[in-house]
């Protein structure tokens, strides 16, 4: 694979790149959570990303989402794909410009090893988690709840229940306003858990000869 010959992942944790290059991560939503998580996953060496969103980049997104002034008016999945390719041109991206419904989840993310929930509305987070768990009960979903406001870094925690992993303070609401740093922390917590789960699981499968 071309990327392993480049120096892009020379500083990665030894043994992780080969595993991550074979991994596929789905990201539902390309806003503050999804765009920042996608960037970290691209830098980490994930081989394939499935990104889904139906929004257009607006100037008000730029306080926390990984877009630039030149992206305004562009489809988020198109702009994000461009930025991810600028980091790793060999990254495989399936970009889906669609307002996802629960019924879309099985087909859209059927090839994903793991899903990152990156919606903004709580009701959408809820049906996405349910749809994923029903369609893929053996695969992990990493979610975020409570990442609004300023500061309170120590309140951002991780909770686990089977294949469901939830980051955030679980209380702060976007009506408080959203700050780039806190949103990016939550997004990167999601990405960090994804990398951890993928490397652990793939290493287990390799050791078991699967």
């Amino acid at each position, binding site marked *: 694979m071309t990327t392993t010959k480049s120096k892009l992942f020379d500083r990665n944790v030894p043994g992780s790149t080969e595993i991550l290059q074979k991994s596929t991560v789905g990201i539902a*939503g390309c*806003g*503050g*959570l*999804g765009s920042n998580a996608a960037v970290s996953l691209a830098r980490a060496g994930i081989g394939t990303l499935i990104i889904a969103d139906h929004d257009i980049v607006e100037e008000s997104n730029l306080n926390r989402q990984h877009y630039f002034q030149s992206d305004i008016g562009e489809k988020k999945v198109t702009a994000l794909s461009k930025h991810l390719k600028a980091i790793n041109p060999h990254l495989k991206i399936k970009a889906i410009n669609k307002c996802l419904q629960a019924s879309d989840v099985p087909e859209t993310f059927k090839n994903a090893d793991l899903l990152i929930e*990156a*919606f*903004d*509305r*709580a*009701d959408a*987070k*809820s049906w996405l*988690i*349910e749809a994923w*768990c*029903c369609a893929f*009960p053996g695969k992990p979903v990493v*979610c*975020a*709840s*409570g*990442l*609004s406001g300023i500061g309170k870094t120590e309140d951002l925690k991780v*909770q686990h*229940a*089977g*294949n*469901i992993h*939830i980051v*955030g*303070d*679980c*209380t*702060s*609401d*976007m*009506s408080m306003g*959203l700050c780039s740093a806190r*949103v990016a922390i939550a997004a990167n917590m999601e990405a960090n858990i994804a990398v951890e789960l993928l490397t652990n699981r793939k290493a287990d499968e390799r050791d078991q000869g699967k």
Partner: protein
Amino acid sequence: MIRVNNRDTIEWKKGMTVKDVLTAMSYDYALITVTVNNHLVPHEEYDTCPVPDNAEVGVFHLAHGG
């Protein structure tokens, strides 16, 4: 005994459902994700999903923001 969110405990009763646990804990139905022994319980099953004794129940509040 049932443990909720790895923290609170409530007494188990025969025939207990997820709805009964949520009521006992004063949780609002609206924006939560619930697991029983690490398995997700769909919203439409809260009224009927049995909670066995010694179950570990997770109730996660979902807040707007992303």
